């Protein structure tokens, strides 16, 4: 395994983390935010 391979794996993991974090923030954030707003108005 070369340094280029390590860089490639790092890039691959970084993309994977983005694909995991973006939906997580959107889903958890939406449930929390709408729940919060819902309680504020009711």
């Amino acid at each position, binding site marked *: 395994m070369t340094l280029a391979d390590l860089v490639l*794996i790092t890039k691959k993991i970084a993309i994977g983390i983005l694909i995991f974090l973006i*939906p997580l923030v959107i889903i958890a954030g939406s449930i929390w935010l709408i729940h919060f707003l819902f309680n504020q108005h*009711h």
Partner: protein
Amino acid sequence: MTTTAKTQTQVILKDSLISLLLYVLPIGLMFLSFYISGSKPWLNATSEHLSFRAPAFLDAVFNNLKTWGLPAIMLVVGLIEFSVGLYENKWTKNERTLDIVCFILPKIVLRPMIAYFGLKLLPFVLPDAKNAFAWVPFWWGIAIMAVADDLTQYWYHRLHHQLPLLWRFHRTHHSAPYMGMAMTSRQNIIYTAFFSQIYLTVTLTYLGLGYPALFVGGIKSLITTAAHSSIKWDKPFYTIRWLNPIGWIMERLISTPATHHAHHADTTDDGIGNYKGNFGNMFFIWDIIFGTGIITRQYPSAYGLKHYKEEEWYAQLLWPIFKSKKEGSELAHNGPVVGDEVTEEPVPVVAPPVAAIVHAEAV
């Protein structure tokens, strides 16, 4: 950056913005239903009974499906496929070893490890968030989890085809020159270890959506396994007249052998194969929404990769930790990034090294 690459990047960005709306859609609909019905399920949650419990029989079915149930189904279907000669003479020792290792390793080592360490680590990262969404009604939880898990897998899968730097991590799944139970789990270990949707599902389970996750996981496993099967169980839906309307909806909603086999075809020249699309795993609807799907109701005549060099099973499993010794292979040291895009020059008397020309649009 070439024009094609720029266009592709713009398409990916546009589609990912649409995806953000799709992730929020079931959540918005859930709160809309609360608004209309006047219900507030979070008020009923107590410390003794935070999470919704699925009926006991559902719990048993899906628990078993995720442990020994699905492997048992795969083994039985695989035996039927094998006994009627569906693998013909393509299941060589090398392919067989790779398929079996890929079948066993993620199930008994990787996925349990990710789930175990994920649920051990999360209390430290999100200490106050455990079961925060346990009040979400079971069926709404299923809608949220189904979109969360499968749309995330759609993107993970699509980017491994459309970003050249990721292609070789997914190549192993496409190198099988056959369809069937044997190749369903066939993946490079790094591709499997960093499956984004597994981490998303583990985190949402920690947040209280465990039962919906279990249910969705079970259904998804059945659909994706059935879509990889060499038994063309969907054919009657296209050929029997009264089943046509069901077939029309089914092929747009979920992955079927026809649409998923097209994704594993070795060519797009016949108008049936679509290895540059049909990325959906459980749901095919993502391909319909993003315009990456083709529905022909036909099955490719050949599967795999045109440039497959029958690389060693360990190289396919563990690349780039171990490389292939096959000259010109994508998995070899200094091999092309995307073999499909290599321009092969006519061979002169003294052949120069074949240049690997990689375009942004990968396999």
